[in-house]
């Protein structure tokens, strides 16, 4: 991965982290933490994460992307964005 792309992904992760922090009321979680299992957010929040990712990164979440696993952690969402070419 080139430096520019790595930087983009880091910026994306930072944005995702900030959005989750805003809703969870805390920012002291690692990027691998399963946000749902840890109780930081409940399962209803996944559709908001989907909307956040679509609108913030101008990507289309396709039917095959609609797995909880793709939204369960900051790293999982970053991986989804990488798949989308971010």
């Amino acid at each position, binding site marked *: 991965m080139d430096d520019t792309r790595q930087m983009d992904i880091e910026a994306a992760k*930072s944005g995702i982290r900030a959005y989750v922090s*805003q809703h969870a*009321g805390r920012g002291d979680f690692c990027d691998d933490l399963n946000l749902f299992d840890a109780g930081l957010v409940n399962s209803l929040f996944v*559709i908001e994460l989907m909307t956040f990712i679509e609108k913030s990164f101008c990507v289309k979440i396709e*039917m095959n992307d609609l797995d909880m696993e793709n939204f369960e952690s900051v790293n999982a969402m970053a991986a989804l964005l990488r798949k989308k070419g971010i």
Partner: protein
Amino acid sequence: MLAAEMLSAEESDLRCKLQGFASDVLANGAQSWDIAQALPVEALQRCGAVGYFGAMLPKKFGGLGWGALEYGLLNEAIGAHSVSLTGVINVQNMVAQSILKWGNIDQQDEWLPRLASGELLSAFALTEPGAGSDIEAISTTIVDDGDHLVIEGLKTWITFGDRAGLFLVIGKLAGKSTAVLVERHAAGLETTPHSNMIGFRASHLGQVRFDQCRIPKSHILGRPGIAFPFVVPYALDLGRLNIAFAALGMLRTCLEMCGEHVLGRETFGGRLISHATISALLADMGVDFSACEAVCIGCANVRDKGALNAMDATMIAKYFVTRAASKHVQNAIQIMGAQGCHEGSPLARFMGDAKTMEIIEGSNQIHQMILGPRFAALHRKKRSVASQANSLNDELDTIASLS
């Protein structure tokens, strides 16, 4: 009063037009419909003819292409007379928007034009005897059988369930939450009415039984596994917008009826409004109506802008306005006295409707469970989380520069 200033001239004109339609079509019939526990076909046809059943669908499917505000104002206008009818409009738009969001092109072409025209009316079959707010407890099963699916289960308290031609049914396929579209004529589907409800009495609530009900496999909406996390919350979110505005309409009727009564009725040598206790009730009602109007219009604007907090805004609106409506319907009856206590009064009808609105599309207790932590998190952020994470706006600016 105040929030009306938030509307453009065009939006205010639409609001007047919608209220005129509602008065023409509903004012004289709504009371008798609830007593009879049935909506007349003519009223449904009139709503269909002007496109209200596909209000938010794109024009290419025969819809009106409305946004949240126009749709909200429609529900306010109709809710002022018949909450039962707003219930039918609600489930129709929930199903239509679900097909638009999650359906494939074939499903959209097959069902959306008929839903938009009102030729086909629909129901959202989620609740079960053992699963209300806790949707994960749903026990309806969907079994893969070659080119078909076989549904087994019982849905209850389904708005328009006794009349709908199309059902969006939530069940589990191999343990995965799944949404399927089931037509009324499907073999093994049977409906029975729920009579004598305290609210939404003319909404044709029904029980829907699936007894080895066979449907084509192509009727899966989206794919297995997405119903609980995606399809259901998306539909309920739209439902909450409907409920908030319908409750606003109900509140407006309370004010109108009470206003006329307290200015016209003489007691103890003066008009009713001259008594401080009555004035206080009217003041509370008017202030809450104004606040509800602002919350509803603000919520609709947030949705129409595509803001990220639209779901929160809609939950706030549903919670706030239904709570206010429930309180002020009771106060309105207190002001009207015996005149409000008879089944011929809209207020008596509204009392059951308002209570029901605090329960449906996520009970207000569920709203508290979600909104409480949200507000706590938001306010905590102002003090400390901001120091743990960078400002969200800064992050979003960075993201915007990347995209």
